[in-house]
């Protein structure tokens, strides 16, 4: 449904998007993830024919964005980073305007407007001026605007920004409903967002594709570097936390030790390994040989948060290998 090849976008000074390729199948929800300035908005603007790419091609819903922009535009719904609303218009008036602009006939328009007003829970503010709405409501008007003409592809730039938790859940529900018939790309910083509503993740950082995979695979793959929770028993402050941490850090293959909160009589640590190293046996031996009691040891999956940080911060060795894998795909 969406096919991007070698996409590059250069601004005067910066390369905002650097040779990105990916594909999205029909009916999928894909999360577009990256830190600030990664190039998410830029990529989305290219997909929606707002900006032309400097190099490479993008094909959306069967049409090339450069050769057939009008056909592409007919088939997409787009929520830009800032909801594109006119403060001087009423909500329903605005939706009618946008709907008509997107080619809905005057006979159908009222039905479609009522439809999205219901879906986006805008009933209460239907006749209010958009300029008087709160940020969250304006965001919902933005979403309503994107889905009003029932487009095959939905491109949403940070759809849940500015929404309260209840609304976030509602929007997630809505998106899950829409997926299947619609292909959805949404960008976000919020990782739980991706875990909850996306099937696949595309991670970019500084314009480069870092990883593209299903959420489950990504979590698994990065377990190659495992994280282990270790609890050492302590009696009357013996042994002290600093000592234990130091000792654990010396175990070969350990990349990081974090002290967690200690509860009655137990010192809890989270230990991360270097990629591909198994450290559990060595950890256990170290604790026991030091004469301490090992209360508990279990592996904890790296959260998507950790993965994200690993992938997008340059110092981490994980990045280069993951990027190579990403490019091979």
């Amino acid at each position, binding site marked *: 449904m969406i096919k991007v090849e070698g996409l590059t976008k250069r601004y005067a000074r910066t390369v905002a998007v650097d040779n990105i390729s990916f594909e999205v199948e029909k009916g999928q929800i894909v999360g577009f993830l990256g830190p600030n300035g990664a190039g998410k908005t830029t990529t989305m603007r290219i997909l929606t024919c707002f900006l032309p790419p400097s190099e490479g091609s993008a094909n959306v819903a069967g049409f090339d964005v450069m050769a057939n922009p009008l056909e592409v*535009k007919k088939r997409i719904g787009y929520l*830009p*980073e800032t909801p594109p609303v006119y403060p001087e218009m009423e909500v329903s008036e605005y939706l009618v*305007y946008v709907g008509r602009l997107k080619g809905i006939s005057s006979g159908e328009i009222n039905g479609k407007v009522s439809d999205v007003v219901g879906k986006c829970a805008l009933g209460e503010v239907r006749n209010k001026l958009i300029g008087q709405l709160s940020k969250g409501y304006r965001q919902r008007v933005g979403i309503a*605007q994107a889905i009003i003409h029932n487009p095959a592809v939905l491109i949403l730039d940070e759809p849940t920004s500015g929404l309260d938790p209840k609304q976030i859940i509602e929007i997630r529900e809505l998106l899950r409903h829409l997926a299947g018939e619609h292909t959805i790309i949404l960008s976000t910083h919020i990782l739980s967002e991706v875990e909850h509503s996306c099937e696949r993740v595309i991670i970019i950082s500084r314009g480069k594709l870092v990883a593209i995979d299903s959420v489950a695979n990504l979590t698994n793959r990065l377990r190659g570097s495992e994280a282990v929770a270790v609890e050492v028993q302590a009696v009357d402050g013996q042994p002290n936390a600093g000592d234990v941490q130091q000792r654990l850090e010396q175990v070969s293959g350990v990349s990081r030790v974090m002290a967690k909160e200690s509860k009655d009589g137990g010192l809890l640590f989270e230990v991360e390994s270097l990629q591909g190293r198994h450290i559990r046996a060595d950890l256990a031996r170290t604790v026991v040989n030091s004469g301490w009691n090992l209360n508990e040891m279990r592996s904890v999956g790296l959260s998507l948060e950790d993965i994200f940080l690993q992938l997008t911060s340059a110092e981490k060795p994980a990045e280069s290998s993951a990027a190579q894998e990403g490019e091979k795909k």
Partner: protein
Amino acid sequence: MTSVLLICKKEFKSYFTGPIAYLLMAFFALIFGFGFYTATRDVVRFSLQAQMMGQQQPMNLNDQIIRPLLGFASTIALFLIPMITMRLIAEEKKTGTIELLLTSPVNDLAIIVGKWLGAMLLYLCILGMSVINIAMLFAWGKPDWKPVAVAYLGLILQGGCLLAIGTFISTTTKNQIIAGGVTFFVCLLLWLLSWFTAFDTGPFGQVIAYLSIITHFDNFAKGLLSTKDVVFYLSMIFFALFLTARSMESLRWRS
């Protein structure tokens, strides 16, 4: 075509959601009314004097009042037009709604023409303020209606031209004030040029006179309808709107 009308309607309506449309109309009505008052007062006094001196001179409303008055209207319009066009595209760029417009299945020219038509409608409303005064003349005397109609057509065409130029300038920035300022400067320059060409009758002056949007109005003001002038205005409007659409496209490439 539907989208042109849609955008035009929306644009026209949004002028009236703020004070701008009312301000412009009131301003024009006031200045024009003042001009009307001065012109009629002088003419009436002059003809009374002539009568007292025993000369029975038929008063010509067309030449003595309507023509200078509508010429005056065309000058006022020069100053109002920047305020009509400045927000057209600049505001959309500022608030980000331009992303909605440019990702909707509507081509750039339709957007531009729609916006220009919306501005044109407001301009017509503003001109409409002068109709009241002119109608008074018709009630009072018997002016010839044809030159009046021609002059109005001239006002509309000249306005259309300047509005198209203003629309173009509005695409080049996201700052309304700059858009308005530059448009104002251009209008002023055209106005000055028209003065300049009145004095310089050499070949250079003639070229400028041909290109000057304002000098083409002179014939209309005199009540002379010539195809040459109409074609000039229409092609200028078309050219400016076409340029605007191109400008939108090149801005995409550059930004």
